[in-house]
């Protein structure tokens, strides 16, 4: 029986931006999203740029800075039978949770490594910031063991970031994120800008971490191949809404939502020279999303009802649902 480790309910997170003068513009990055993350799974979120997936992740993490505001809903962690309402916590409580229970690896995080400090010292900084009782010698041992566990050569500890390649740096960042035994990892585009071979290494690393450290991992990427390789479940987001979620096998074999179907069909494959078409048009502005179903302007199957009413969630089986009017008919 899979246990829910994070419960997101009716979450609404908007960016309220003051554009000079007295006008405020509301960018509805996350608009009424609900889903659960199960313990020990790798779940992926797919979506185009600007669909709100990074904002969703930041909100789940609790990193909410103006102009981002949570307008409604809740995010509750379920750790060791304790419920933690992340949105209600203050800065010091969040600091205790961050990196010890949940870690967030933002996009382009290879650049967060301080170029003037050796890798080992960056680990020491993190450890000291959280637990001053660990002695230096003990910490160093801990670091070396951990580095070895994630498959990095031991020379990495004494290197500077610029001596490492992009892929290596990304692995270091993942190691940093898990050094304090964090059980939940939120990885935003962990393999973008890395080439295929390195990407495979990183994805393998994430799988390994899930197995050996018993972590739960949320991976955000717009690359469908990545999801197919490591995720157990996949969620698809579009224009601030979650439009489909389900086990990876079902999503790829029988995608329900037209957007998901389009995403899968547009992928080029070796051995297949047939013409592929990408989704036409561009994603809608989150300030002023289309009426009704947000995908309807680009959907080949849009009906009248799609233009006026927001689709309801249609549950196909307990693990797989999609929000689309076309499914309600069945």
């Amino acid at each position, binding site marked *: 029986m899979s246990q829910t480790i994070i419960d997101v309910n009716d979450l609404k997170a908007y960016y309220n931006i003051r554009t000079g003068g007295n006008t405020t513009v509301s960018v509805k990055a996350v608009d009424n999203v609900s889903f659960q993350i199960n313990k020990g799974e790798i779940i992926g979120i797919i979506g*185009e*740029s*600007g669909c709100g997936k990074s904002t969703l992740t930041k909100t789940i993490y609790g990193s909410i800075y103006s102009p981002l505001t949570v307008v409604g809903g809740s995010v509750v962690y379920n750790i060791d039978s304790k419920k933690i309402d992340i949105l209600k916590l203050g800065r010091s409580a969040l600091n205790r949770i961050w990196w010890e229970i949940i870690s967030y690896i933002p996009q382009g995080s290879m650049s967060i490594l301080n170029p003037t400090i050796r890798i080992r010292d960056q680990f020491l900084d993190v450890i000291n910031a959280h637990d001053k009782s660990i002695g230096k010698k003990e910490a160093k041992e801990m670091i070396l063991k951990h580095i070895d566990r994630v*498959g990095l*050569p031991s*020379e990495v500890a004494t290197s500077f970031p610029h*001596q*490492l*390649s*992009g*892929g*290596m740096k990304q692995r270091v960042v993942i190691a940093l994120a898990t050094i304090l035994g964090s059980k939940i990892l939120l990885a935003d585009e962990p393999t973008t*800008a*890395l*080439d*295929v*071979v*390195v*990407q*495979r*290494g990183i*994805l*393998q690393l994430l799988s390994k971490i899930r197995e050996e450290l018993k972590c739960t991992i949320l991976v955000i990427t*717009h*690359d*469908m*191949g*990545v*999801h*197919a*390789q*490591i995720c157990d479940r996949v969620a698809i987001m579009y224009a601030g809404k979650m439009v489909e979620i389900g086990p*990876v*096998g079902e999503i*790829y074999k029988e995608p329900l939502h037209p957007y998901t179907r*389009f*995403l*899968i069909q*547009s*992928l*080029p*494959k*070796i*051995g297949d*020279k047939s*013409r*592929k*078409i*990408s*989704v*036409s048009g*561009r*994603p809608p502005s989150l300030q002023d999303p289309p009426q009704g179903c947000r995908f309807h302007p680009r959907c080949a199957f849009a009906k009248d009802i799609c233009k006026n009413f927001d689709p309801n969630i249609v549950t196909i089986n307990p693990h797989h649902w999609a929000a689309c009017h076309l499914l309600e008919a069945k």
Partner: protein
Amino acid sequence: MNRPPLLEVKDVTRVFKIGGLVFGTRLTAVENVNLTIEKERSIVLSLVGESGSGKTSLGRMILGLLKPTSGQILYEGHDISKMKGKHLDFFKQKVQPVFQNPFEAFNPLKKVDRYLHGTAINYGLAKSRDHAQKMIEESLYTVGLTYDNVAGKFPHEFSGGELQRVSIARALISTPQLLVADEPVSMIDASLRMGIINILLDLKSKYDMSIIYITHDLDTAYYISDEIAVMNRGRIVEYGDAQKILTEPLHPYTCLLLECLPEPDPEKRWRERIKFSGIETKEFEVPGCKFARRCPHAKDECLKTRPPRKEIKEGLKSRYVDCFMYT
């Protein structure tokens, strides 16, 4: 066949000095590369490899943005490093780039139509303002945009996909014969890539243009290419017909690249763990085959001596692979 080839890369090598004057080392980014694109056939030639394979440096040398340390790059028989004045202008019209990051390709403080008008007018291609306007509109139409989409806008007002299309449209205005596209879709969302790739594919037939497509993504390379050159640490390790090479690869490195493609099919997951490459610069220093340290079939001689070339005849097309396994 008496006409000189459109592009000839002759034994080109490029060495970078990294580090300071005293303690620096030399990095051979491109080593003894030979490529030819004939004038009559418009083809798409892909340069594929990981980052650090030298494909981007080679692309820059072909565009004339970087000078080879040795070897020559000939456009229609003329050495491009010796081109000056009108001849150089002609070269820049006929060989155009499309860069990876569309937001870097345009000056963020300038409106994008400046470059469109510039390309039409600066080379004397347009006889009047109206003529320039027409040329621009035609170009934009090819990439699926209209002048209104583009007029008076700054780069940040576009999405990545749109801006890349504008980039391509700009390159088309001077009716180039060779387009050098350096990872044109790697910064664009996977779902929108095919739109741009299809544009490039259609250019080949519509405009009688050849394209050098630099990428690390083999899926799009398969979709679009006629010929493919697989590069590893500066050397071409396998070359030939794209379809053949990607479906029946010979070189172990090509096999690795294909294996590492994340297939969007959960039933076909990776089974083995691959070996990580160590500190990169060490791989460059190997005197023999640069892939030997990671190769599952490597023998002693692979590390010490440069692998010999095996040529494979397949009708008119040439194919070769540099590997001890085949000799």
